[in-house]
């Protein structure tokens, strides 16, 4: 579905990604773990076209999307849930979701929108309750759900999530991860970037470890979870801590 070859990207003089290659198969959850500043967000922004990559290839659905604008990439079916829950805070929950469906309107598939809306409300019942509320007045967890719901309204083939657990309380993080699992079980493809390596790897099929702009390790989620280096660098403290995030 998504295939990246030798991607180089960065801001100004700073080169953040160095020859990154990876792929995502249809129907799987792939997670990218790594410390802050490793380039995880840069990678997602480069795929989504928010940041123009320097060189390399990003093949989505058989087409090179490296030089396409964000709008075109979304139109092709690749949606990003941005870091920090960037909802339209001055608009209602419903308006947020309808804007997510903009691609559907452009594809002249208006009838789908109503059904999709119902689907999202079933997935996140709290959003149905808050339909008329301004998005900015929602709590952090609700905003994250709205952001995911909005991305789903576009009917994407691939959904990318940037740190969905960031700044959320453990209980809500658990909800969010349950929903990601549910999405996969419904046949969606998910590319998940997470700081919380243990939680991410426990729901993912495969994973990549990104360190200072390079892919250092890759493999199945179980392999990575049991890898000594990964444990030491990213899971270390979690393993013997008393409060664990269990799913």
């Amino acid at each position, binding site marked *: 579905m998504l295939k990246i070859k030798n991607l180089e990207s960065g*801001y*100004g003089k700073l080169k953040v990604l160095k020859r990154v290659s990876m792929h995502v198969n249809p129907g799987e959850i792939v997670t990218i773990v790594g410390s802050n500043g490793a380039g995880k967000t840069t990678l997602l922004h480069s795929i989504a076209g928010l*940041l*123009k990559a320097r060189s390399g290839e990003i093949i989505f659905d058989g087409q090179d999307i490296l030089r396409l604008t964000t709008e075109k990439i979304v139109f092709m079916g690749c949606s990003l849930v941005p870091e920090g829950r960037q909802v339209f805070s001055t608009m209602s929950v419903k308006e947020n979701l309808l804007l997510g469906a903009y691609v559907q309107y452009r594809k002249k598939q208006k009838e789908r929108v109503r059904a999709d809306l119902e689907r999202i409300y079933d997935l996140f019942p709290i959003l149905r309750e808050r339909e008329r509320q301004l998005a900015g007045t929602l709590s952090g967890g609700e905003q994250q759900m709205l952001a995911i719901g909005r991305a789903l309204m576009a009917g994407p083939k691939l959904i990318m999530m940037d740190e969905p657990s960031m700044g959320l309380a453990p209980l809500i993080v658990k909800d969010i991860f349950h929903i990601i699992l549910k999405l996969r079980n419904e046949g969606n493809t998910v590319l998940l970037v997470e700081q919380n390596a243990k939680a991410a790897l426990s729901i993912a099929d495969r994973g990549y470890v990104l360190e200072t702009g390079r892919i250092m390790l890759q493999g199945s989620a179980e392999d990575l979870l049991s890898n000594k280096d990964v444990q030491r660098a990213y899971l270390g403290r979690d393993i013997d801590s008393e409060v664990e995030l269990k799913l």
Partner: protein
Amino acid sequence: MNFHKYLPIAALISAVIAIQLLTYFTGSAYMLTQLTMSAYYSLVIIGLCILMGYAGQISLGHAGFFAIGGYISAFLTTCNLLPYRSHSLVSLFSKAGLLNMSEDLYGGQALHFHPWAACVMAVLFTIIAAYCIGGPVLKLKGHYLAMATLGFGIIVYRIVLGTSFFGAADGLSDVPSFVIFPGLEVSGKSSVRIQNYYIASGLVIAGVIILLNLINSRIGRALRAIHGAEDAAGAMGVNTAKYKLHTFVLSAVFASIAGVLLTHYNGGIGPSEASVMKSVRYVAIVAIGGMANLWGALLMGFLLNFLSLRGYFGSFDDAVFGSILIIIMLFAPEGLLHKNSFRGIKKIFSHTTKEEGQA
């Protein structure tokens, strides 16, 4: 004490002297008139530079402070108090030595405020006005701050334009020369042209030294902190409201002093000095100089005002400043004299999209 700190000042003093000698030997001493005027305008500009570049607060009303200084000084030194001589207030002023007697054009007697008294009163009034305006205005940010200061400028403009004792559209004229002390006077007479050039330049140099000291001190650092992240500066114990207000008042005083002296130099002042276009021009020059760059502001202040006063821009004077503003802000928001100033131009030809941080 490090010597190189004073090197730029020495260079500035040498440049001032060199320019005077140059005009002397090339027989273009008449240019000193415009140079003197440019120096006074530069005083406004370096004051504004501290406010905009260092404390990060825009003011679109600085011509208002210039006009307050100029108009009050002009009014007090030209209005004849003779008919009110017996009034208790006037005799009080007289006893305090604030007034002096002069002869008007027709040989009649006239009683005016002494320029020194007028100057002090003008500056005092500016300080009061700046405190009153600055207090509430500086609580605002971004567009709101810009509009509020613009509004202040327009109010001053409308008042001087609509008030008969300020001469309405004609402004005030016949402002006497300002005798600082016997033998040294601020006036436009050609006999004292060189003297006046040095008075104005000396004032600018003093202003630059004072502001440089401020920039390189604890206060200057606090101002840059306010510019960078105001709430963090507050959390570190910087009284942000007070510092912004004091900087605002300081830059208003610079504008006011320039207004007083330029009015005495020109022998008058008109409402155009208070116009919005003047305020915009000051902002433009600070922007070209590079916002947080006192030397850049100073150089551009001298240069552009001089060119403008010499009439090089013809009837396109305002349009030139408007265009300069646009071009600078599009291509070199760090100012012309910044080391990265050409990055902006290069940017058009390359594909990099990363932009500078929020100012």
